[in-house]
């Protein structure tokens, strides 16, 4: 496809270089040999497993990410974003092509294991830090800051099974936040957790970027892509089909979503019309009611005096 769009940002300052990277998965038994088939048809079972059930999750991706960039990858579900991130992280090997990384990589990938529910938050943080390559002394030195960032002071010595899912996420992010990475890979993790903490996470990521950390993020949160990233790419069926300014990429992504899915198109149209109709009807009724209500005029005057103007009549409230 558009190969000229892929090889953006050339030069020597690339922290992360992907050259014609492809990744193939085997479907069904995912590479396992089934004893029965293997015994009955030893040669055929191997050969079939390799050809028939192959899925190319990532196809021929060439990409350079330069130092200090905040690079976002968007795309529909199953377009290969997470696989690409996993290849960048060195968690799996590309079937073809090469991945070159210059610098310490830290991955922030959403997952279900890693923390053990039966042991305390403190011990989990320690094991996590060790898993991430720190020494015990380093983790212990960072622990107070991690606990504070996560806001878990009273809970850190409790077993993690007593934690809420929000607390899990907070501890996980806090550990990652204090890893001192050179490249940070983020996969959709910020979709969980409450809005306040999410904001804190984005702030932290932005401050990391300000310190010169390179960030690659996979997300469906298009707002965040536009707000934070310096460059973005759109993936479709394993390929990077466009790279460029975040706003242009998210617009293209939405466009493609609507194009590829007539249902979304129709749903969007219908809902929009319905809502416009409903809101104008509601608004009219509401305004009529308000006009005849002296209390409203008094409150409005107060509000104007307090805030110096602003929106005072949200439409939906008249429904009741």
């Amino acid at each position, binding site marked *: 496809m558009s190969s000229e769009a892929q090889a953006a940002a050339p030069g020597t300052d690339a922290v992360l270089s992907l050259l014609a990277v492809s990744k193939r998965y085997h479907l069904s038994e995912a590479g*396992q040999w089934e004893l029965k088939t293997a015994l009955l048809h030893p040669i055929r079972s191997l050969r079939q497993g390799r050809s028939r059930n192959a899925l190319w999750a990532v196809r021929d991706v060439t990409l350079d990410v330069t130092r200090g960039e905040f690079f976002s990858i968007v795309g529909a579900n199953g377009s290969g974003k997470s696989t690409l991130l996993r290849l960048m992280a060195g968690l799996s090997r590309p079937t073809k092509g090469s991945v070159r990384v210059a610098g310490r990589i830290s991955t922030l990938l959403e*997952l279900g294991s890693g923390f053990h529910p039966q042991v305390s938050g403190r011990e989990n943080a320690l094991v996590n830090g*060790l898993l991430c390559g720190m020494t015990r002394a380093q983790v212990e030195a960072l622990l107070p800051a991690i606990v504070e960032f996560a806001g878990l002071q009273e809970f850190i010595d409790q077993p993690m099974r007593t934690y809420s899912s929000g607390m899990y*996420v907070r501890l996980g992010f806090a*550990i990652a936040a204090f890893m001192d990475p050179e490249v940070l890979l983020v996969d959709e993790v910020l979709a969980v957790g409450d809005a306040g903490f999410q904001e804190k996470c984005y702030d932290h990521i932005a401050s990391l970027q300000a310190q010169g950390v390179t960030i690659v993020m996979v997300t469906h949160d298009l707002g965040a892509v536009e707000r934070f990233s310096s460059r973005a790419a759109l993936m479709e069926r394993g390929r990077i089909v466009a790279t460029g300014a975040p706003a242009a990429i998210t617009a293209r992504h939405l466009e493609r979503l609507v194009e590829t899915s007539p249902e979304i198109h129709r749903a969007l149209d219908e809902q929009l019309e319905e809502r416009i109709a409903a809101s104008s009807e509601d608004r009219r009724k509401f305004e009529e009611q308000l006009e005849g209500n002296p209390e409203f005029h008094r409150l409005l005057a107060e509000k104007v005096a307090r805030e110096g103007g602003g929106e005072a009549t949200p439409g939906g409230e008249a429904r009741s």
Partner: protein
Amino acid sequence: MTLHAATFGPRGSRSARNGLELLAALTSRELRLRYQGSVFGWAWSLARPLALGVILSFALGKVIGTGIDDYSVFLLVGLFPWFWFQSAVQMSSTTFVGNGGLLKKVRFPRAVLPLSVVLGNTLQFVLALPVLAGFLIFSGHEPRWVWLPGVPLLFVLQLALSCGVALFVASITVFFRDLEHIVEVLLNLLFYITPIIYDAGRIPAGYGWITWANPLAPIAEGWRDVLMFGQWPGVELWASGGLAAFALALGWFSFRRLEDSFADVV
């Protein structure tokens, strides 16, 4: 849902210190979890060899009659090392399969997963050694000087063998899940072809190769020679040393060869 972080540099930049500390942390977590909340805790690890020792010394020693002197001590000296090997291999076989989430999300020295299980079982064995020594002394087998070089030698051999087999089995199980069950069956067979409930001298002529092909056989005989009879182990132990080294190499290389595809398959 949780999230996870991992930092790593270009290949091999992780310190050996980090690897060892990780191994230690996982081992201690593993051991504490195993007996968490149980009243007798660690003492349970003695229960299996002791119970089997009691029942076998009745069934084989008293009912059938083996004609071996001090049969209950004879059994215990064989059973403690056996359970160390058996649990280490059996429990580590699923460590990669069972930690799929971790393998998919974090890059770390993956060998620590099976090795921490082996190490946990090793620690239990070490803690059980004084108990075993107590039984020996109580039944009139006084401590001998040969224990000093003999016990560490056998310990190292069996540890190497266990690590090698555990790494091999855990790595292959990722691609061939049946292995977990095959290993279970094979371990049951191994128990009977290893001289644990009998001594190697009783193996009829023509079956001697079993002892030579089974790396655990000379080690089991060795434990008995050293602890019970106070003699230096026989020459077969050197063959066993070779096999242990081979197992370690095989385990390590098959692990290295396969580890990069773990995340794609689990």
